[in-house]
């Protein structure tokens, strides 16, 4: 839910503390309800119900006249709880909460009963049944609201600062955007300089510019911001606190510790290139087997008319796709974590084609071979690079998904044997001076951080967002956002966009002096709590529930304590609390028992 959908409560009316006086309103919805349900009978039935002081029916409760009834009854007739039977609460719950607010009553002292979508519209041929059902449902609504406490949105103070972990392009982009937004930013970088993976030389798609110029442009801007602090060679040793108020202990390069305080944390710890196993496609068996980043470096450094390694003129180069990506259990050797990388690394196909073209442009005499499975040149102009490669006489071989080419290191060249789909699955033999391994992307090792921040990781070992569409840069821990390739393979443009999205979430979260939180979280009745701790075992959200020694009614005892900033209000704890000491505010078990009682009664 967007935080702004929780209306501010400025209720001053304390009348709910007095004896309950419930008002019931039954809406006709211009015949939509009243054509099926006998609304007069419902209102009359309810007027006899205990604690109901007023019971009315009206043509359009949502109209301003309808709302005025509610306001007037609260202000002038001593009504302190309201039940409205009408359409779905999703349409007009906020409308009527607004009306209660205007009348000065806490907006949560109102229950909306749905007798349109879930009664009159679905029981058209059963008027008597629909009417009886409506009566039962409205009675249940009265029972619920009688047991309702006023709710106020919980607010936690927010520091207007962000800690960005990692100074690659994702970290720099997020830091720059947060800083431009006026937030104080601290960048914490493990290595000795900023810029991340793109510091290496080499050329990059889609612009063809030098890779290193991308972090350079960003860092120039970042360094010009007065509200940005950067710690390099810094290590995080502990993280405490919660949304709005995190503390990070940072060990600086000089060995001293610094306490960094932040309202939000952006994790931008980036990726590493996959390192092949010894012998995987000839890796480490020859100095002529290179990874793609190594080859790109060589290519950029090579000047003149020939490209050479160790003094040997290179006349042919073969590129191998999917090294460390799209691996298959039982075919490929698992990594240290015991798992194969079954994911696609997304950027390698285009990166390889880009390098192949660059090689051909710089050294047209070189024969270039490309061994791929599916050509994933998906981006805006990537297909053009692929076409250009064909025009540049790059020779393509397509290996079947389950087949693995065999690499033999000869004394003078490298032999690659592969099945080729393009020639009716014929066994092909390619001879090349250099074999370039299109190594995939793996997340950086951030086990410590994962522990400190309780970060969830997916089966692919990348950080796992709550939901790829609903909350794509959030983890379940409020106030922590993820940016860039720590989350999964992305190219430069995608990384920058993702980093800005993490930044906008931090900026929105910290845009006001305090952070409003949903009031529907667990609450503990300390009198009833026996300190058994069963609820703790049920809670999925670390830190949301703790046991604490407290003084209750003059006696010290152990009770459950809820941190509303971390509780999500799922109610998993509620079910295991035998004395019903813990409940979700606004949705208590006593309320539901009473509702079921009212429904079950004849």
């Amino acid at each position: 839910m967007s935080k702004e959908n929780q209306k501010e409560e400025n209720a001053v009316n304390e009348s709910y503390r007095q004896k309950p006086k419930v008002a019931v309103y039954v809406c006709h919805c211009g015949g939509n309800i009243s054509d099926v349900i006998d609304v007069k009978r419902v209102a009359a039935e309810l007027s006899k119900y205990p604690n109901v002081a007023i019971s009315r029916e009206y043509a359009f409760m949502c109209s301003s006249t309808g709302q005025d009834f509610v306001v007037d009854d609260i202000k002038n007739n001593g009504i302190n709880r309201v039940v409205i039977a009408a359409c779905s609460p999703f349409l007009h719950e906020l409308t009527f909460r607004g009306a209660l607010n205007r009348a000065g009553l806490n907006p949560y002292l109102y229950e909306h009963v749905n007798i349109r979508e879930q009664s009159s519209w679905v029981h058209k041929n059963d008027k008597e049944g629909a009417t009886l059902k409506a009566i039962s449902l409205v009675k249940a609504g009265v029972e619920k609201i009688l047991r309702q406490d006023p709710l106020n949105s919980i607010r936690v103070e927010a520091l207007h600062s962000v800690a960005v972990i990692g100074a690659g392009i994702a970290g720099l982009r997020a830091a720059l955007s947060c800083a431009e937004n006026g937030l104080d930013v601290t960048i914490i970088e493990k290595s000795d300089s900023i810029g991340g993976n793109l510091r290496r030389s080499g050329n990059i798609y889609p612009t063809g510019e030098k890779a290193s110029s991308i972090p350079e442009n960003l860092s120039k801007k970042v360094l010009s911001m007065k509200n940005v602090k950067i710690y390099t060679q810094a290590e995080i040793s502990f993280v405490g606190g919660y949304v709005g108020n995190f503390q990070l202990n940072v060990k600086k390069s000089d060995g001293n510790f610094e306490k960094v305080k932040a309202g939000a944390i952006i994790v931008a710890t980036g990726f590493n290139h996959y390192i092949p196993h010894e012998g995987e496609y000839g890796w480490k068996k020859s100095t002529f087997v290179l990874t793609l980043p190594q080859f790109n470096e060589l290519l950029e450094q090579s000047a003149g008319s020939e490209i050479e390694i160790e003094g040997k003129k290179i006349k042919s180069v073969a590129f191998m796709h999917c090294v460390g990506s799209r691996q298959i259990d039982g075919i490929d050797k698992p990594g240290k974590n015991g798992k194969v990388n079954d994911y696609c690394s997304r950027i390698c196909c285009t990166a390889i084609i880009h390098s192949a073209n660059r090689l051909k442009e710089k050294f047209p005499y070189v024969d270039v071979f490309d061994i791929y499975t599916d050509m994933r040149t998906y981006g805006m102009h990537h297909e053009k690079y692929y076409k250009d490669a064909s025009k540049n006489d790059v020779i393509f071989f397509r290996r079947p998904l389950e087949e693995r080419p065999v690499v033999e290191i000869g004394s003078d060249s490298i032999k690659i044997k592969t099945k080729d789909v393009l020639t009716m699955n014929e066994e092909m033999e390619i001879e090349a001076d250099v074999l370039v391994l299109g190594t995939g992307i793996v997340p950086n090792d951030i086990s410590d951080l994962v522990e400190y921040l309780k970060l969830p990781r997916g089966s692919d070992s990348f950080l796992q967002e709550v939901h790829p569409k609903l909350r794509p840069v959030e983890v379940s821990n409020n106030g922590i956002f993820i940016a860039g390739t720590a989350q999964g393979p992305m190219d430069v443009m995608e990384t920058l966009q993702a980093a800005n999205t993490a930044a906008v979430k931090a900026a929105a979260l910290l845009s006001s002096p305090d952070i409003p939180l949903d009031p529907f979280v667990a609450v503990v009745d300390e009198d009833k709590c026996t300190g058994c701790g069963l609820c703790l075992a049920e809670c999925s959200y670390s830190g949301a529930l703790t046991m604490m020694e407290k003084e209750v009614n003059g006696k010290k005892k152990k009770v459950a304590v809820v941190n509303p900033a971390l509780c999500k209000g799922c109610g998993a704890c509620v079910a295991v609390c035998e004395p019903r000491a813990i409940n979700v505010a606004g949705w208590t078990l006593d309320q539901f028992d009473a509702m079921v009682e009212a429904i079950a009664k004849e």
Partner: protein
Amino acid sequence: MSEKKPKILIITTNHSSYPGANAVGQAHLSYDSNTYIIRVPDPVMFPENFYMKAFEKGIAGIIIMSSGSDCPYEGAYDRLSKRIQNVYNLMKGKNIPINRLKLTTICTVCREAFIKEISDMEKVVAK
């Protein structure tokens, strides 16, 4: 149709099955009126005895329409399905046929599935 039929309690979630029930109404489909829908953040909050008490009070059948894999809460669905297993054991002890309690998943537009769950339960409670 107005003779008193055994009552069915339908537990829906704010997140998916309650809007699903609204979608059934918006499509003007119909089902029997002995069906009472309540909504919760997540049915994981109900202890075993909530269901048992509901049966004692005279509810004939209960359908829990959870959000299933769409559930916004961590681990809630697994906990819920384990709890329902416990309830089944309690029901067996009290000789209540376990098909009077059904755990299912209904999405925001699962109109046909919603109707089918109700008609299945109607058959069960009619016996």
